[in-house]
């Protein structure tokens, strides 16, 4: 046995060197690997989808359910197609209204969570202010913001600004609360490490506190992303000239339930896009965390 071999045993990459047993455990009994088990699950998954959609369509047709109550899948597909096959400024198309809604969501999300993060940082660097403000943050974040949406529309009108403010309100709190929690949870050892090197407060913030709090901040951002879609829809329900929420109301008024389902599909796509974009940023920024570290979001 040579030194070299011994070193190899160490430097061979292992999933998690500190806990080799974790990797072992579920391997019993060993299943024979299929050619591509993932692909086969995916195929089954897609088959399941088509079966479900097919039986939906069949049920609607066989039981002759009224279309404006339960639209057949084909209605939704047609409405989706018609909505997408429009010019970018067509007022009856998904692009125009989707664009308005997307603009509201992005603006509201960026502004709301930006302010939330900024205040979170400021507040948590000043323990006295934090103690003072904390009970009010706790109380205010319990106010159901959607309930004040009508008032905000009265204040700011029916344009994009009232929706942006509603979304800001909805996104502000999760980011504020999680970032305060994040800064509170910074391992004091890390701060001590930097103090031991005579680091300045700004260095301590930059090199230890901020990166430590980031996973919390991202948890807040994920929640905020989900809330921002909700905010846009509710805001548009309450009063708006354009946007997918308006389109839903318009279609409901014409008993075009298939159409409003199609709009829901578009909204979901926006939600999924936003979430996965955020997740990509998160994965890049938090590349140092294990991949499974709770990458969960829920849309309301």
């Amino acid at each position: 046995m040579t030194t070299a071999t011994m070193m190899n045993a160490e430097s061979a990459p292992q999933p998690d060197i500190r806990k080799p047993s974790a990797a072992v455990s579920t391997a019993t009994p060993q299943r024979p690997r299929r050619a591509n088990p993932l692909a086969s699950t995916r195929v089954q998954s897609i088959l399941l989808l088509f079966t479900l959609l097919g039986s939906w369509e069949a049920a609607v047709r066989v039981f002759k359910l009224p279309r404006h109550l339960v639209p057949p899948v084909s209605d939704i597909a047609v409405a989706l197609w018609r909505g997408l096959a429009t010019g970018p400024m067509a007022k009856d198309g998904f692009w125009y209204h989707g664009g308005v809604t997307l603009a509201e969501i992005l603006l509201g999300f960026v502004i709301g969570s930006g302010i939330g993060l900024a205040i979170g940082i400021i507040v948590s660097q000043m323990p006295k202010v934090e103690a003072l403000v904390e009970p009010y943050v706790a109380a205010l974040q319990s106010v159901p913001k959607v309930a004040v949406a009508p008032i905000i529309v009265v204040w700011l009108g029916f344009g994009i600004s009232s929706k942006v403010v509603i979304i800001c309100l909805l996104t502000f709190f999760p980011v504020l609360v999680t970032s305060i929690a994040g800064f509170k949870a910074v391992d004091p050892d890390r701060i001590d490490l930097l103090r031991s090197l005579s680091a300045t407060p700004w260095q301590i913030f930059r090199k230890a506190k901020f990166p430590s709090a980031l996973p919390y901040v991202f948890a807040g951002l994920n929640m905020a992303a989900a809330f921002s879609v909700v905010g846009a829809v509710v805001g548009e329900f309450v009063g708006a000239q354009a946007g997918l929420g308006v389109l839903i109301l318009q279609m409901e008024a014409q008993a075009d339930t298939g159409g409003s389902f199609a709009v829901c599909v578009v909204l979901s796509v926006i939600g999924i896009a936003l979430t996965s974009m955020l997740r990509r940023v998160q994965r890049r920024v938090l590349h140092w965390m294990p991949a499974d570290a709770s990458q969960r979001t829920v849309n309301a």
Partner: protein
Amino acid sequence: QNVRIMRVANTAAVNDPQQCFVTAGQSPRLNFYKSGGVDVEYVNMSSMTQALQSLRAGHVEFGPAVPGILLPAMAKDPSLDLVSVYKWLPRNANTIVVKPGSPIKTAADLAGKRIGVRSQGDAGVVITKTMLAELGLKDDKCEYIAIGDGAPAGAAIDNERVDAMVAFDTATARIELVGTKLRYVPLTPKFAQLGSGWMCVPRKMLKDERKNLVALFRGIAKSTIFSNANLDAGIDLHWSVYPESKPKGRTEEEARKELAFILKDRKNSWMRRPDDPDQRMGASSLAEWKANIEMAAESSKNPKLAEELGDPNRLFSNELIDEINAFDKQAIVEMAKSFKG
């Protein structure tokens, strides 16, 4: 060319082909508004109250006035200084609808029932109260349920979640458009004689933008005459301006047929009564407003309403009417009749 955009509060929440009585002139083919340096923009909202607040906050330039809501609001809040300058529905466009088999035969049967209204802030609530008050049923005990527009409202009537619905003809028409069968119950006699819709503007605007307002309401008057003369054309023009209001579920032919059927009688609400001594488009009368105050006082259970409002002459104004009507109505009718789609 500078075009002044005049935003209007659309309390119907969505765009609807019946608006062709206003919107037809927006089409470049008619160009009733832009020729006068103005244009109309619809701002959708869900209730009359939202419209009043938007007028006060300056989010819109003009909006519909329903006396039953407007008058108590003005009495309560002196800063809400609106003037009704154009009567857009000279006949009563309010409707009571029930399921065809319903036991409700007259307005009196509404007492104590579950009344569907479009929203909690909708005129339906005060209209019902007004009619019941006229019948002496002052403590109505009705339950008002917001059932929205179109399909949801239709389903609510169909499934007997409400006993009746009280709303503008535009709203009930849309319920019929989605395929729900309705029976119309006659309005109470005194109320039926009243006009049902005015357009109001902030008093300050009446001073500052007289010229624009004249152009605006002249455009509306022209559009109304045009669409009344050729409803098909009016609907087509509306659809060309507001494609989102074009029904997607059925063919254009079917949709137009349905609409034509529904609007056959209703289109006349927009026109002056033939027996009306004042045939000017948009003109109001003091007598009418006194009646409005009286009914609003009863429905809002505020006997002092007239006192609080002061001089009824400040509530409306006919000062624009002559200028608005300074156009050749017959020419518009001719134009409509010969209009090719």
